[in-house]
């Protein structure tokens, strides 16, 4: 008979290895995809960079060299012949990878700024927005879900269910617009801070930022909490119908004790999976909310890049979003393995 302890450890280790290698593989594929997507553009990339039709052939050539557009895309036949195997790799793709490893994400077509700098400058703004929104959504969602499960079948439960259905039908950006129109008078509706205030102004500045943060965060929170609420509700109902709950009751525990010691942990486990699953949506929501409320984060940056066809920025923001979601998913998977002793490779 196998010794169960050892077997589980091995299984869990396999699980971790699989998840990590999958994350890395996905990352690599995203990087490759990111590169090739922008290289299949119809037309001459130079024309995209420069809008003036009166550019001389020389100037065009210089731009080509600067951006490395004179090299072949991914395989250099000439290089192979001239310089051997290393020459074969003298391509745009290699240059891209090389730059990536050094953290160079290119230069914005529109503003000539370093994409990396742009991202760095704005990333924390999105993080703050998303983090606060998500945390509130999770906390409130879990609470409402538990209440709905507890009061299953009552009007409260029905109300909560209807609320869930309604928010599912509501596009994020439109909800933002509604809130904007409703609260426009009393809360700031655009930007991050009222013009004139600077970080040096200390508390006044941060309070102002906070006020600007209210509506976009509220939009995200209200819409996302319904998903968590519905999942928590069904998770709790499911757990509460399990046999071990009856055992707990037979032991003489009261409802609160049963909930705290047996139901909660079991019901929370699916939540982690759901949070990971919805992280992709959260990113989408951030883009929409930042657009509607002109919150100067990465989402807004991506929107602006779409409007202006600023491909390096588009590439950079996509990469950032994808990497964040992949990483977050991985963390969620690892967390789940820690919390659920039964986890085996699927």
């Amino acid at each position: 008979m196998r010794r169960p302890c050892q077997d589980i450890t091995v299984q869990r280790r396999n699980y971790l290895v699989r998840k990590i290698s999958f994350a890395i593989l996905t990352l690599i594929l995203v990087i490759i995809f990111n590169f090739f997507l922008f290289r299949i553009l119809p037309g001459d990339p130079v024309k995209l960079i420069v809008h003036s039709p009166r550019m001389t052939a020389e100037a065009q050539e210089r731009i080509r060299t600067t951006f490395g557009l004179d090299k072949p895309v991914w395989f250099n036949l000439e290089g192979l012949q001239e310089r051997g195997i290393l020459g074969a790799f003298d391509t745009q793709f290699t240059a891209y990878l090389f730059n990536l490893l050094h953290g160079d994400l290119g230069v914005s077509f529109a503003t000539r700024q370093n994409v990396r700098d742009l991202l760095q400058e704005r990333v924390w703004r999105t993080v703050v927005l998303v983090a606060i929104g998500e945390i509130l959504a999770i906390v409130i969602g879990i609470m409402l879900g538990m209440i709905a499960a507890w009061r299953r079948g009552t009007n409260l439960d029905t109300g909560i269910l209807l609320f869930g259905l309604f928010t599912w039908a509501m596009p994020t950006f439109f909800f933002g617009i509604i809130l904007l129109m409703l609260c426009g008078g009393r809360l700031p509706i655009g930007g991050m801070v009222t013009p004139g205030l600077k970080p040096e102004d200390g508390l006044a500045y941060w309070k102002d930022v906070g006020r600007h943060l209210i509506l976009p965060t509220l939009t995200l929170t209200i819409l996302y909490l319904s998903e968590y609420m519905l999942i928590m509700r069904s998770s709790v109902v499911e757990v509460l119908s399990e046999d071990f709950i009856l055992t707990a009751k037979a032991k003489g525990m009261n409802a609160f004790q049963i909930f705290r010691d047996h139901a909660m942990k079991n019901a929370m486990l699916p939540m982690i999976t759901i949070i990971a699953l919805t992280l992709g949506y959260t990113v989408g929501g951030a883009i929409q909310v930042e657009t509607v409320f002109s919150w100067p984060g990465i989402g807004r940056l991506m929107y602006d890049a779409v409007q202006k066809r600023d491909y390096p920025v588009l590439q950079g923001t996509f990469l950032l979003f994808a990497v964040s979601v992949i990483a977050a998913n991985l963390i969620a998977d690892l967390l789940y393995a820690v919390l659920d002793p039964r986890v085996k490779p699927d």
Partner: protein
Amino acid sequence: MDQQKRIWSTLRRKPMALVGMGMLAVVIIMALFAPWLAPYDPNKRVQVTPEDILAPPDAQHWLGRDDAGKDVLSLLIYGARVSLIVGFVSSFFSMFIGTIVGLTAGYYGGRVSNTLMRITDFLMVIPDLPLMLVIISVWGRGLWKIILVISLLYWTYTARLVRSQVISIRERQFVLRARALGASDFRIIMRHTLPQVMPLIITMAVLDISSSIIAESTLSFLGLGDPTLISWGMMLNFAFERAVSRMAWWFLLPPGFAIVWVSLSIILIGNALEEIVNPRLKTHHLFNPRNMISLATGKPRLVETELQPEAEA
């Protein structure tokens, strides 16, 4: 077939489904009979004076006029077409791809399943909206491009669900029997497995429709919709750019509410379907214990066991 008839008759009796179907019918009528229902033809050029721009509602224009002086109500009615087309067609494609992938992965298992599931997982991990934005930006705008991009991302959920269903069906008696009788794989899949999974697929496809509609409107709102067509998302795009400062609610709100209306209608139907196809009737153990004892013997009761009079003999 019998099963589907049963599902349909149960569905018809659920109030949620009826409300949803009613709501959807309104939109479908709007889309089909747009040329007759719309008071003006939104494709016709209009001569506008500055007062006509973002004019508030009045007797001739029930929902006022947009930033180009066109009648908002007419635009709204015509907008139904794009939403419905994108919703139904994308969902159909997703259902098709998802079902094939799910059936294959579930039935054959092993390396085939692993590979397919890796691809599925890959697509699921990448965030939806950024990917769609990036692809459309590069590829170009257009109705079919939007439909394809949305289908590309949304088949994964169906695939996963179908696969897990197929796995559980695979080992059931009637499948094993069919295999023992020498039925080909294809036959087993089509005649024995698929009908079992169909209700679930249909439910997912229905819910997919609403997701697709919302996805299209989001893409259009962000400026990537088909410029040659009227869609609610595009209306919101223009409205947001130009009508917010003027608080022109007649232009800003109706298209959004229309989107919510049609999504909600489909979600109600889908939700009702889900209740039928996937019932979770378990009641839990932590209900109020007061109801448990209904003694009618007239003995004194303590406070915590509130006794009810006997309900029936």
